[in-house]
């Protein structure tokens, strides 16, 4: 199919992009890597009047390590993250998740920022972003603000990024002991259940982010609580993983029932925790 007609703008600066958004309001959409927006436009499920291509903006494409934190520009592609030495050394979870996304071509074009703003409940990034307790910096007409991952995903395909705002940067703390375990929806490659786990053995604490299971990606709070202050032995990890779908109404579709998604949440959480703990 073909998209409905639209006007195209390719701003050179973030300010220019923001002013286009504020001028055109609801009728404008940001185009990053295009892998969420363009399919929706081709099916005419999205029909913006103006497409603001932020693909060439400077300042959103870098991966930087500073002050023990890692900052990833919103326009960094999945492929760039998958290939990043810096991230492989300091935050391998991001590399692991990026490698699990879509396919080679999708990773070449799709961006972390675009994917997060689209907030598909079966996207891979939300699991990692939650498990890493990332900070997300958003630019708007009134300047910049930061939200935490926990406050970022607000509804089905909805995030804390408001109309007129642009997600600029994702910041995480280095974390070595981590893992991502994904069961993919066979056809689309999206997550039926993706579990990202970060284990801090010294602090005796874990963080678990789960995608694909619920209408909105979530932190497995019950699992985290159960392991708070515990020695992270295999048995206790497995037992705690049993709570991975506690309090969640799982999605159900032709690819997996709610039961099975909840079951996968438990199995993949146990596997992710064990793998993370062994790293």
């Amino acid at each position, binding site marked *: 199919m073909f998209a409905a007609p639209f006007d195209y703008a390719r701003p050179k600066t973030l300010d220019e992009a923001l002013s286009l958004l504020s001028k055109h309001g609801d009728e404008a*959409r940001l185009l990053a890597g295009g892998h*969420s*927006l363009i399919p*929706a436009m081709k*099916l*005419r*499920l*999205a*029909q913006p009047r103006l497409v603001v291509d932020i693909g060439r903006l400077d300042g959103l494409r870098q991966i930087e390590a500073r002050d023990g934190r890692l900052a990833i520009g919103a326009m960094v592609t999945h492929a760039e993250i998958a290939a990043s030495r810096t991230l492989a050394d300091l935050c391998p979870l991001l590399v692991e998740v990026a490698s699990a996304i879509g396919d080679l071509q999708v990773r070449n074009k799709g961006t972390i920022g675009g994917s997060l703003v*689209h*907030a598909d*409940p*079966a996207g891979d990034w939300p699991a990692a972003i939650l498990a890493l307790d990332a900070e997300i910096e958003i630019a708007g007409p009134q300047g910049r603000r930061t939200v935490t991952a926990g406050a970022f995903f607000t*509804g*089905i*395909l*909805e995030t804390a990024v408001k109309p007129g705002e642009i997600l600029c940067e994702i910041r995480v703390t280095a974390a070595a002991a981590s893992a991502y375990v994904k069961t993919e*929806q066979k056809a689309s490659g999206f997550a039926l259940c993706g579990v990202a786990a970060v284990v801090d053995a010294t602090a005796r604490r874990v963080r678990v982010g789960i995608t694909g299971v619920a*209408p909105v990606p979530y932190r497995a709070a019950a699992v985290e609580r159960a392991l708070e202050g515990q020695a992270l032995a295999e048995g206790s990890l497995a037992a705690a993983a049993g709570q991975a779908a506690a309090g969640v*109404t799982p*999605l*159900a*579709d*032709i*690819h997996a029932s709610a039961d099975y998604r909840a079951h996968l949440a438990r199995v993949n959480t146990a596997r992710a925790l064990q793998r993370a703990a062994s790293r």
Partner: protein
Amino acid sequence: MKLTGTYRLAAPPARVFAALVDPDVLQRCIEGAERLVRTADDQYDVHLRLGIGTVKGAYVGTVRLTDQQPPDRFTLHVEGKGAPGFVRGSARIQLTAAGAGTVAICDADGQVGGVVSAVGSRLLDATARMLMDRFFERLGAEVR
């Protein structure tokens, strides 16, 4: 697609019922209802902008109220069609007094066709649930 929800509202059934059959209130409560024009008794033409995130569509259709038994129950029918296909649904709403408030039980049955059902089936149930929750959330605010 069938779903059921139970909601607590901080007003007696009579007041809730009155709000529910008021087109202005209905318009404010139905997500994306941009225009609600009365065409007959208990029947309205409606313009809906419905959707989530990237996926938004404009629908034109009708809203009908049937089986009205004030202040206990009625059925709300929504039908719309637009570029992404069509939506059809009916919701049987049962109101029961509970203390100073009302418990509303909503039994809905919906059908979506066209592009949305071809590509978005995995999110339909959850989206319908969200729309229903939002409807009653807004209704709650209206009658508070």
